[in-house]
């Protein structure tokens, strides 16, 4: 197989899987099993094809993590007919996402536009009285798709600026974060827990290509927006009582940190991809854990109304505690390791930036802990029926914890791009003629 065919094969497996899974549409159990299998095969393919793929500037880690995220997102869902579209859409988005990451030339932006188009359609399709339609979110993704198109056709430096703006809609950066918040809160089934890793991964991929050549003022603006976003996300997360909003804003706060580190260092390192992977996986795990509660007590359940799960659902309690630890940035999980790594390898020019990053990191200990505490501890309610995790839910959360642990203890240079490998950096992205 030639190196040119490898990215198409990698993107093609989940796309073909999505198409084939339609044959099992009538049987939800078979559909989910086939979707899980396809994502597992994609993971194997990503590992097998590593040597034939162009090495992304941020490293190949995210290529491996995306199929795993899809797999755990699918595993963690209850068997219900209503979720079938979300399972197929997960495979579809996985294929498009891998295409964006693996295809070095014009194919990447094309796949990105398609992916954003799918997301817009899904956001338009899914809304409930609890989560009404968000035109702002749809508009943000539309803007992102437009920027991706402009980056393909415009001359320099407009293409680079458009590419950076597209990145800001994917890897959420204030004020282009509304798509991120909307997709996590509105989308059904397996999609939020997958998208929370997919889109930031694609954003980082674009950022790694566009940022090294960014002029000083642009980097300065990005730094300011990243600081504002990190603080804004943390403050908003503190105010939320609805779990999905809390996680959306909490992840916004963490993803904004990546912008700050990247802008301060002038490039996105492999540690940034570890951070994206870890923060994305931690949020994904918490969304899956919340899905467990929604499955048992309904979508509109108030977390304050559930308590005492530590005594009645011990397996769930242990996994949720570990996920909360990871999301708070505590060791030995990946968020902490990558956060430390980024800080130790980023040149610091002023005290304000690190202060805000540390404040956002610290704030996570308050809102994540509060959320986990509300669910796990307190008195047991006798009027509630408690049922611990079923096998698929357990497997899903357990894999997430294992991945987070692996990201925390594995040396980050293992994920660094190979020095002699062909680079996937888009040549068109340059700020000066």
């Amino acid at each position, binding site marked *: 197989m030639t190196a040119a065919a490898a990215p198409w094969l990698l993107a093609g497996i989940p796309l073909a899987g999505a198409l084939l899974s339609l044959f099992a549409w009538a049987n939800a159990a078979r559909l989910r099993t086939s979707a899980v299998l396809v994502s597992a095969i994609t993971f194997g393919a990503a590992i097998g094809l590593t040597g034939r793929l162009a090495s992304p500037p941020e490293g190949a880690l995210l290529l491996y993590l995306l199929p795993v995220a899809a797999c755990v997102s699918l595993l963690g869902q209850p068997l219900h007919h209503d979720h079938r579209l979300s399972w197929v859409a997960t495979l579809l988005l996985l294929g498009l996402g891998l295409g964006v990451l693996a295809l070095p030339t014009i194919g990447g932006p094309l796949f990105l536009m398609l992916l954003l188009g799918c997301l817009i359609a899904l956001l338009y399709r899914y809304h409930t009285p609890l989560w*009404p339609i*968000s035109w*702002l979110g749809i508009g943000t993704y539309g803007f992102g798709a437009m920027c991706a198109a402009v980056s393909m056709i415009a001359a320099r430096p407009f293409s680079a600026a458009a590419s950076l703006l597209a990145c800001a809609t994917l890897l959420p950066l204030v004020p282009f974060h*509304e798509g991120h*918040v909307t997709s996590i*809160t509105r989308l059904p089934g397996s999609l939020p827990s997958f998208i929370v890793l997919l889109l930031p991964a694609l954003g980082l991929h674009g950022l790694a290509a566009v940022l090294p050549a960014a002029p000083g003022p642009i980097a300065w603006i990005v730094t300011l927006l990243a600081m504002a976003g990190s603080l804004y996300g943390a*403050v*908003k997360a*503190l*105010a*939320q009582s609805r779990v999905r*909003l809390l996680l*959306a*804003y909490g992840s916004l706060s963490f993803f904004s940190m990546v912008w700050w580190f990247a802008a301060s260092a002038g490039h996105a390192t492999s540690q940034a991809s570890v951070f994206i992977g870890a923060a994305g996986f931690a949020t994904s795990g918490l969304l899956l854990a919340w899905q467990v509660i929604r499955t048992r007590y309904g979508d509109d359940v108030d977390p304050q109304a559930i308590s*005492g799960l*530590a*005594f009645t659902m011990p397996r769930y309690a242990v996994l949720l505690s570990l996920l909360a*630890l990871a999301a708070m940035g*505590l*060791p*030995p999980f990946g968020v*902490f*390791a*990558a*956060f*430390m*790594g980024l*800080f*130790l*390898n980023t*040149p*610091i020019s002023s*005290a304000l930036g*690190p*202060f805000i990053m*540390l*404040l956002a*990191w*610290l704030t996570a*200990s*308050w809102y994540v*802990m*509060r959320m986990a*505490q509300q669910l*796990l*501890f*307190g*008195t*047991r309610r006798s009027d509630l029926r408690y049922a611990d995790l079923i096998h698929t839910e357990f497997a899903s959360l357990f894999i997430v914890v294992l991945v987070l642990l692996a990201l*925390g*203890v594995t*040396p*980050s*240079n293992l994920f660094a791009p190979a020095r002699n490998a062909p680079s996937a950096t888009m040549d068109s992205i340059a700020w000066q003629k």
Partner: protein
Amino acid sequence: MPFVILVPFLPLLAAVIVVTGGVRSRQARARLAAWPMGAAFCGAVAMLYVVATEGPITIRFYDPASLASLAVRLGFYIDRLSAVMMVLISAVGTIIYTYSIGYMHQDPHEHRYLALIGFTTCVLLCMVSSANLVMLFVFWQLLSYLLYLLAHNHAHAATLAGAYRTFTLLRVGDAAFLAGIILAYSLYGTLEFPALFTKAVAAPVMLSPAPGWEINGATAVTLLLFIGGMSKSAQFPMHVWLPRSLYAPTPVHALLHAGIINAGGFLINRLAPLFGLSSTTLHVAFVVGTMTAILGAAMMLAQNDIKKTLGFSTIGQMGYMIMECGLGAFSLAVFHLIAHGLFKATVFLNCGNVIHKARHEPHFPDPGHQQEQEGFSRLTWLTGFLTTLFIPLLILLLTHGALHIPLLETQGTVIFLFFIWVTSSQAILTLTRLRAVASWKVSAAMLLTLLFIVFVYLFAVESFTAFLYPDPQQVASFFQTAALPSGLFDAMIVISTLMTIAGWTYLYMTAHGRTMRTPRWLDGLKIRLYVLFMNRLYADELYELLGDVAMRLIHRFDKRKQGWSQ
């Protein structure tokens, strides 16, 4: 030295033994797990011997020359300080674990609790034997979370609220600690202890955080790290978490007050060469420690709950420990934390029995008991005067005159002498309470107390300091860095002396049944201060108010921006 690695992980093995297995074998496993805990103690003692005779042990599972590719760089650096701490922790851990087997018997979550005790001991041992600042920080943070878990009874609302506040407050300290690490790495390019100290000494750096304001790099780093230490060692104003954790099981208190809370003192000692470069940080430590000692002791006196009383007593003692560090007496601080740890662990492990006994066996005075006749005793008072005022003064003069130690130039010696005096006075007052009993036994007890304290301090000054810090020049340099302006130092000594003498006078007059004429405003102030200290300076309420205000502002901000997210 493979057994070196075993020592921190034996308590972890104990935790694993406790949690793995069925319900029927739970009690047997709990007892079995006590053996690895005990083995850890024996290993720690053996390690202390090896380290004392053969020098520090360094084991690294990473390449220190490589850039931060591994965020968590595991390794062990065990010098005499680490070994001493490991002996203390493993001893206290073993005693508490063994005690807990009986104490928590039939508790539905006994196995979880015992496993947490084992795991906490493991974390503490790893923390004190860390090879670098990052590893120390990793275990430092885990300790913050473990303190949350060790509250144990999370179904109880007050326990849960206390545990949450403890965690959130400790995380503030953790954030400052992390800031210190980042700054240290950016300034010196390493986080390995010996290399960090060498570079900090070799290349002093000046920072300019704002125009016209310059700060020494070592000062900035140590101040940030000190905030981290303040939170763990419950220093004012970050002390509020300790009294709030009173709902935890009593053995947890023993572990907390004897082991975990010493983390701040250990941190400063671990980084003594770095702290020894910054007079500013040491002076800040002195001020914070002094305030904590005074306020902690004052609040302790006004509490009416035994656990709270002991909690504030610990805060006061931790204040002393930090104050000693601030004066440059690092080894004295370690000595203090060991003595206090053992004492407080004993008290906590015993206080449950006392309460239990008092509840179940109400004590009535023995009808045949003959009250000792109280009266003014010349013998007792003369001995008291000699032991607490005359002999210390004599020692001071002898040291100055006969031994030709330049006391006025060496604050360190004065500090040690002063501590001997204050401690012996406090011990004599506490032990005898000057009940004016005309007995030679009381006089003998006073003399023995003084002798005991003098010898203990001599040991602390000479042997223990030489053991922990074999280089006398280094010890002298700590004192020099910590030296206060001579006028201030003299004033403090004079004020403390006057206060001690005033205390004696007050007690003397009380013993004679005399009253002191005090102005009315002073009486009012005494009552107001009592109420203030009884309510713990309203610090809890203040923190709650601040939290409420912050959350109200956040919610107001959220409501204004809600249109965006809907």
